[in-house]
């Protein structure tokens, strides 16, 4: 039993709240061996991060309380060790990297100093620590490490910051590396690079890698074994490939079924007259072209997906269309009239026809208003839609339309889950009876299974009401099942556009091919093939 590098046995953790104890994890057991990659897979609130926090002594007690269980590291129970003893293990033998590298790097120290600090804190001489820092920065692939060692965190890109975090974690050659959603905040191409780096480093040092993730694709790419968690319990555990192909627990089956990118692709509509015609859109921010010569068309009842990595100008395009910012050049013809040069009065009328659903429903709903007020605001702004006495009934109807209950009308946004909030945002947009709905990363902040539900809702609404969607996303598989046509953007320009089949099956552009090769497939077998293909592309 003690030959595992790390073993968690029957761990239960409670959090005391005013409304009584919350069982964050219950009776969780798993183990990690040397040279192995174990993935803990779960959606938000499943308790997947709690056991890792317990290992690192990061649970705040109170309100947290470790009810039972033991964590054995080389046969020693960490939960019974003194804080001083655990501090000596943390960073040295067990290291951790986090989701958001920017908030875990101190902005006022140089990165070199921060990496070296780990080593000096564990008793390495200063000069030696600096030499090792340089070596590590080279190893994790920071270009010109000699110069960059004295640079500050803000001077690095998101992917580079994650590389620096990895360098920091590896400083003391740990036996175990815990990675908590290490690539969630990164673009797909960068994500592939970081995962490849982690895999290489693991092979090199023989450490055990514990990966916490919500993404089946990440599991398929890197994990040997997987532990699936739901509601604080382990529902399934086993070999990654076997769990994907023969899931035994209904929750795992549901999770795998919800993963986008495996369904039928849609055939483009055969309409002739475009509803919206965008010509040569451009936006300069002080000489920097965030958007350059973008032209496309949108037909009635159609879904056009705009895909691109961060900084590709896809959100700028949406904001220009809705006149949240003014485009520098170009025109957008809607119903034969140019949206860009439209006066205030016409713009106000146009707002009814073109609506938007934002990325983060937590921020796009005013926290101080009730759901009824939020949706009712549409009628307050455009009083001619509906007579005053019919509005409450209509709001209830809209709530039911998006799959909520009519009685939710008196609640506030914080009383809903993320997916429900996005439904409220959709109901608000529908209240104006629009023709076009712009969805800016509308499902990116949601869990996979919730994502699938919201997409299904959007599809249903489209079928019923004949809406057109301009669907902005960074996730290619998501778009594959949903869009009629796809536009690929990079550095403010449209790289390629065409029917969804053409983009996915026969992409013309190098960049599109690279983007497709970088996106992760949930099937470990397919993913292994893709990895081989990617290595060919990059070689």
């Amino acid at each position, binding site marked *: 039993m003690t030959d595992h590098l790390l073993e968690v046995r029957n761990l239960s953790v409670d959090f005391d709240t*005013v*409304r009584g104890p919350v069982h964050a994890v219950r009776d969780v057991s798993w183990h990690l061996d040397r040279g192995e990659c174990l993935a803990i897979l779960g959606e938000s609130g499943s308790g997947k991060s709690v056991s890792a926090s317990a290992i690192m002594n990061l649970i705040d007690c109170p309100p947290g309380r470790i009810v039972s269980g033991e964590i054995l590291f080389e046969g020693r129970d960490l939960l019974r060790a003194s804080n001083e003893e655990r501090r000596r293990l943390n960073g040295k033998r067990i290291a951790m990297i986090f989701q958001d590298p920017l908030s875990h790097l101190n902005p006022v120290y140089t990165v070199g100093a921060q990496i070296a600090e780990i080593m000096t804190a564990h008793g390495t001489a200063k000069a030696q620590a600096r030499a090792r820092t340089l070596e590590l920065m080279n190893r994790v692939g920071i270009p010109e490490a000699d110069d960059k060692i004295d640079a500050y965190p803000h001077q690095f890109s998101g992917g580079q910051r994650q590389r620096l975090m990895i360098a920091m974690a590896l400083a003391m050659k740990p036996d175990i590396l815990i990675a908590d959603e290490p690539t969630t905040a990164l673009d797909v191409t960068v994500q592939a690079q970081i995962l490849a780096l982690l895999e290489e480093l693991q092979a090199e040092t023989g450490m055990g890698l514990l990966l916490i993730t919500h993404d089946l694709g990440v599991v398929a790419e890197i994990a040997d074994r997987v532990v699936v968690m739901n509601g604080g319990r382990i529902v399934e555990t086993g070999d990654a490939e076997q769990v994907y192909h023969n899931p035994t627990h209904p929750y795992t089956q549901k999770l795998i079924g919800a993963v986008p990118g495996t369904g039928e692709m849609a055939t483009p509509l055969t309409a002739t007259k475009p509803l919206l015609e965008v010509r040569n859109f451009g936006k300069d921010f002080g000489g920097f072209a965030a958007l350059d010569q973008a032209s496309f068309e949108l037909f009635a009842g159609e879904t056009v997906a705009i895909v691109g990595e961060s900084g590709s100008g896809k959100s700028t395009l949406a904001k220009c269309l*809705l006149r*949240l910012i003014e485009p520098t050049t170009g025109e957008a013809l809607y119903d034969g009239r140019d949206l860009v040069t439209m006066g205030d009065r016409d*713009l*106000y009328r146009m*707002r*009814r026809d073109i*609506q*938007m659903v*934002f*990325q*983060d429903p937590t*921020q*796009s*709903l*005013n*926290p*101080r*208003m*009730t759901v009824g007020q939020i949706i009712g*605001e*549409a009628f*307050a*702004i*455009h009083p001619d839609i509906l007579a*005053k*006495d019919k509005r*409450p*009934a209509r709001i*209830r109807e809209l709530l039911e339309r998006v799959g909520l209950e009519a*009685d939710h009308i*008196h609640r*506030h946004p*914080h009383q809903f889950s993320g997916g429900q909030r996005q439904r409220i*945002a959709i109901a*608000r947009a529908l209240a*104006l009876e629009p023709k076009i709905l712009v969805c800016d990363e509308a499902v990116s902040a949601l869990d996979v299974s919730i994502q699938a539900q919201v997409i299904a809702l959007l599809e249903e609404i489209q079928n019923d009401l004949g809406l057109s969607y301009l669907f902005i996303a960074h996730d290619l598989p998501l778009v594959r099942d949903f869009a009629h046509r796809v536009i690929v953007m990079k550095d403010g320009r449209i790289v390629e556009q065409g029917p969804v089949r053409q983009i996915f099956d026969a992409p013309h552009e190098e960049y599109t091919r690279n983007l497709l090769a970088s996106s992760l497939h949930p099937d470990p077998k397919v993913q292994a093939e893709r990895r081989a293909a990617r290595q060919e592309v990059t070689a």
Partner: protein
Amino acid sequence: MSQIDSAITTANPIYKPPPAWRTTLGMLWRDKFAFAAACILLVVIFCAIFGPMLFEDVATRQNLRGRNAPPFDLSRGWLFILGGDQLGRPLLARIIVASQNTMAVAAGAVACSLLIGTGLGLIAGYTTKTASQVIMRLADVIMSFPSLLLAVIVLYVLEPSVGNLVIVLAITRIPIYLRTSRAEVLEVRERMFVQAAQVMGASTKRIVARHILPVVAPTLITIATLDFAFVMLAESSLSFLGIGIQPPEITWGLMVSQGRPYLTSAWWLSFWPGLAIILTTLSLNLLSGWMRTALDPSQRWRLEVNKEKAKND
């Protein structure tokens, strides 16, 4: 009216929230400190309105035998429970009478500066760059000019009276609200729900009133309650310089400064009016803290959970 009523009743056949005043009172009762604070403030407001009417004569009648009479001595009557001042006037009566002037100056100055400062801050934060520049530079001018000096000059020219004192104090405190509200507005206007309202075609007026002001208001109200004490003391220093409220008119601040020469021999002269200032500000502060929680839908449960606990006890 009846049409609206019927619309509401048909709209809510299943669930009807209890009337707003009852939930508010219930939430106040659950926070005992805030409840006590509200009671104290009610007493202060009562004194401010009716005090001079009831105790004007007693408070100004001199009695040289009762000079600096010590507190807690009932032999001179209950009005002397807090002692007498340097001219033998009962301190309790004087504090009650003084509350009117004190509240008029402090509440007036704070309310004026809060309203004007917030209004200008909203304009500076949400409209054009030019407007913002003009307003902010004006605020800088006021800030860089010593407020006491400004008050001295203005009150030297104008007649010292409650009204003028309010104007002077309000002007010197405007920049605080202005800067805070502008800074908050600049942050809130970038939030997504503001953009969502823009996309729906909401007017600027609507966005400011419905989406920005409710988010900014709690911070400003908290600052205002803290500023209450500052304004009371500023008023007393102006009175001390002889350009504020002049005897025989009285304020708490003036009473504190009048008692200062006797601090070593008769501490109660300054202590009781000082306590009144502290209690009032503290109450305002507690109440604003409660209000902050009660007005925030995502925090309100803190005041509602206690209800269930209290029931169980």
